[in-house]
């Protein structure tokens, strides 16, 4: 198989992007990122998928919800299941619980706001919480930027044995520090340069 340099670069860049994406990567977006046509992307991904198949890889490139993503080969599900059961910790980490608590008390809230309050990036933790079904997107910030705003789920309330958010224990005479207010405000400004 001979492959000219441009074709090679395109294939490798597509593999790299597909590796890092957490959601199925839409062909239109991929086309835009690689500066080629959507048709070419579709052809490229189809070829790549066939190549992985032919070389008997443990992963596949599949089209899900209109986008392309890597996933494990179904034949290997038993191993993945073993890994999931083996690798999990039975409790939320301190960081995860704090993040969940911030969402619970301050919803609707954006990821930038959470990060500003916690002082660290909250993306990984938020993804875990969302995978576990404890938080979800509930709206969009109406301002420019339209940040996704998160809230807790019905399942979160059920697990804690609460009927509604009103039943969360009152924070009492707690007064948050100025930095918390600032973080909440800053997060809603369009030019959040963090």
């Amino acid at each position, binding site marked *: 198989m001979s492959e000219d340099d441009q074709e090679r670069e395109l294939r490798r860049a597509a593999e*790299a992007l597909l*590796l*890092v*994406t*957490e959601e199925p990567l839409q062909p239109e977006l991929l086309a835009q990122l690689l500066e080629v046509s959507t048709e070419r992307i579709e052809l490229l991904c189809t070829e790549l998928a066939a190549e992985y198949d032919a070389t008997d890889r443990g992963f596949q490139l599949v089209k899900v919800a209109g986008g392309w*993503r*890597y*996933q*494990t080969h179904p034949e290997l*599900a038993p191993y*993945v*299941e073993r*890994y*999931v*059961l083996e690798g*999990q*910790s*039975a*409790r*939320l980490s*301190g960081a*995860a*619980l*704090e*993040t*969940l*608590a*911030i969402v*619970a*008390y301050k919803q609707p809230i954006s990821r930038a706001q959470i990060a500003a*309050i*916690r*002082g660290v990036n909250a993306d*990984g933790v938020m*993804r875990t919480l969302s*995978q*576990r079904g*404890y938080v979800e997107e509930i709206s969009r910030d109406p301002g420019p930027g339209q940040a996704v705003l998160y809230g807790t789920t019905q399942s*979160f309330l059920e*697990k*804690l*044995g*609460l009927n509604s958010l009103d*039943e*969360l*224990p009152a*924070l009492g005479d*707690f007064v*948050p*520090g100025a*930095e*918390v207010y600032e973080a909440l405000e800053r997060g809603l400004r369009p030019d959040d340069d963090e």
Partner: protein
Amino acid sequence: MMSHAVETPVFQGPFDLLLHLILQDEVDLYEVRLSDIVDAYLAELERMEAMDLDLATEFVLIAATLIELKSKRLLPDDDDIDLDEELALWEERDLLLSRLVECKTFKDAAAAMGGIARDAGRSYPRTAGVEERFLGLLADLLEHTTADDVRSAFLRAVAPKPTPQVSTAHIHQIRVTVTDAVVEMLDELPRVGRASFADLTDGLVERIEVIVRFLAVLELFKQGWIDIEQPHTLGGLEVVWLGTAEVDEVDLELVDAYDG
């Protein structure tokens, strides 16, 4: 002598500054005006928003060592210099030298680590995790968590992070320059003719002010305007005004270029 402008990035402490002064500018500490170093230190301290006491102490310590080293150069050759003092001074110098070498070593190691991190930053790991069809296998992580735990976690998360702050009030008192001290003494000495060093430093609170005043005395001595007498061994110093000329003629430009 070239004017030594201290236009520098934000220094991360006295060693950093000293390293910069000696290495980056390739100056001999004895060529550079001591007041520049002292003033640069003070300016640096002022620039730091959150002053901390350790840093201030470190500064005074290093400044004192530098001043001592420098003062040796200003004194005329004297065979009677106390050998113990001489040795102690060398010891301090060696200590300062080894700390500067150590500081420089880690500075360069840090730069290399920065390069490694930059290279590593060009590769992005996969973090997508397991596919949703496996999520059902995950245990309920909230099984042992109560609503009160959530409340405590929230309070923990929003608790103001402690930022250690030390009052800087005491630092501002030490904003003195050698030139200022020279000018003050040029005003006082012709009138009194003779004064003890103790009198000249009467009312000064900070050790650094006394050190600066002492340097000014050495400076005037070097220029021949005063004589220094020590009537008794280990006794107090007496400063005697020798000048006959009008004070205006004392050229402050010559004050070993101690113009800040």
